[in-house]
C-alpha cells in the first residue's frame, strides 16, 4: 500500500517536471519510477520514518502554522540585524522534545532550525541543544509552545 | 521590475562574497558559500523570468540539489577527514 502510493507520487512528480505527454516520455517515466521503487525497497527506505504518509493530512494545518512562525521570527531577526546599535544577546539552551518517534523529534529540530533566530546545534536522545540569536527566542522555546504543536502534529492532529 | 530584483540579488551576492573572502573561520566560508548557492538559485529563476524563459528553473532545481551535496560533503570531510565515514562505527 505504502509502496503503491509512493510510486504514484513519484510518477506524478515525473509528469509535473516533464510537462510533455508523448508516449516515449510517459513510458520512460514509468520505467524510472519502477526502478526507483525497486532500489528504494532494496535499501528499505519506504517505511514510516522516511515516507510518513500518515502525517500528510496533519501537515496541511502544521505547515501554515509553521510558515506564520517563520514570518514572525524572521521579522524579529530583521529588526535585530538592522538596529543601529548591535545589541544582540546570543543564548544557548537545552530543551526537551516530548515527541515519541525519531521522525517527530527530527520534525521538531528542523522546525526550530527553519525559524530564523534559532538553530538546533545538537540532538542527544530527546534533549535538543539550541542556539538563539536573542535571549527571548531561547525562552520562548523553553516554554514549549512549539514542542506541544509538533507533538500534536505527530499524533496526526 | 524583474531587473530591479536581479540587481538586488547581485548586490546581496557581492556582500556574501565579501564574507567568503574575509572568513575568518572555515565555517564562515562554508556558510557564505552555501548562501552563494542559494542566491544563485534565486538569480537563475529571476533571470529566467526577465528573459522570458522560465525553463531556467530546471537548472535552478538541479543546482539546489548539487549545492546540498557539495556543502554536506565539505562539512563531513572537515569533521571526519573522510568522506566514507560511517557514524555507526564510532559506537561499535
Amino acid at each position, binding site marked *: 500500500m505504502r509502496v503503491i502510493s509512493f510510486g504514484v507520487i513519484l510518477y506524478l512528480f515525473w509528469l509535473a517536471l516533464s510537462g510533455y505527454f508523448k508516449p516515449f516520455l510517459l513510458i520512460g517515466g514509468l520505467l524510472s519510477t519502477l526502478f526507483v521503487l525497486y532500489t528504494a525497497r532494496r535499501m528499505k527506505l519506504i517505511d514510516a520514518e522516511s515516507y510518513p504518509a500518515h502525517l500528510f493530512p496533519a501537515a496541511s494545518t502544521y505547515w501554515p502554522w509553521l510558515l506564520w512562525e517563520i514570518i514572525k521570527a524572521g521579522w524579529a531577526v530583521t529588526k535585530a540585524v538592522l538596529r543601529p546599535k548591535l545589541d544582540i544577546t546570543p543564548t544557548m539552551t537545552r530543551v*526537551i522534545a516530548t515527541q515519541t518517534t525519531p521522525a517527530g523529534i527530527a520534525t521538531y529540530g528542523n522546525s526550530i532550525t527553519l525559524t530564523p533566530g534559532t538553530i538546533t546545534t545538537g540532538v542527544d536522545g530527546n534533549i535538543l541543544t539550541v542556539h538563539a540569536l536573542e535571549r527571548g527566542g531561547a525562552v520562548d522555546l523553553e516554554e514549549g509552545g512549539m514542542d506541544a504543536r509538533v507533538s500534536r502534529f505527530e499524533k496526526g492532529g | 521590475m524583474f531587473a530591479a530584483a536581479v540587481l538586488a540579488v547581485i548586490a546581496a551576492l557581492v556582500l556574501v562574497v565579501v564574507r567568503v573572502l574575509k572568513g575568518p573561520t572555515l565555517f564562515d566560508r562554508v556558510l557564505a558559500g552555501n548562501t552563494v548557492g542559494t542566491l544563485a538559485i534565486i538569480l537563475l*529563476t529571476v533571470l529566467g523570468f526577465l528573459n522570458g524563459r522560465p525553463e531556467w528553473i530546471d537548472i535552478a532545481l538541479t543546482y539546489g540539489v548539487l549545492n546540498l551535496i557539495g556543502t554536506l560533503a565539505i562539512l563531513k570531510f572537515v569533521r571526519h577527514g573522510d568522506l566514507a565515514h560511517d557514524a555507526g562505527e564510532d559506537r561499535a
Partner: protein
Amino acid sequence: MILLDAASWLLILAGCFFILVGAFGLLRLPDVFTRAHSASLIDTLGAGFLFAGLMIQAGFTQVTLKLLFVLLLLFFTGPVITHALAQAALQIGLKPKLAEDRRGRLDEAGTAPAPDGQGRPS
C-alpha cells in the same frame, strides 16, 4: 488583474528586502553561529516572498509548480545544512560568543527552572 499584479510586485520587493538584510547581517554579525541565523533569513523569508511573487506572475502553469518544488527543496535542505554546519563547528571546538549560557538548566535533578529564572552566567 492590476491588484494581483501589485500584490506580486509587493511580494517580490519584500523578498528582495529580506535577501539584502540577510546578506548585510552575514557581514555585520559577530560570529559564525549568529551569521547562520542571518543566512537562514535568505533561505526562508527572502526566497519565500520572492518566489511567491513570481508564482503570481506565472499564473496557474507548470512554472508555478516548479517554483513550488524549488521552494520546498530550499525549505527541506536549509535546516539540514545549518544544523550540520553548527554541529560541526561546535565539535571542532569553536566557541560561540554568548550573552547567556542556559545549557545547564536541565541538570538539576531533571527539573527545569522557571523559564524566566536567571540562567547561569557563562
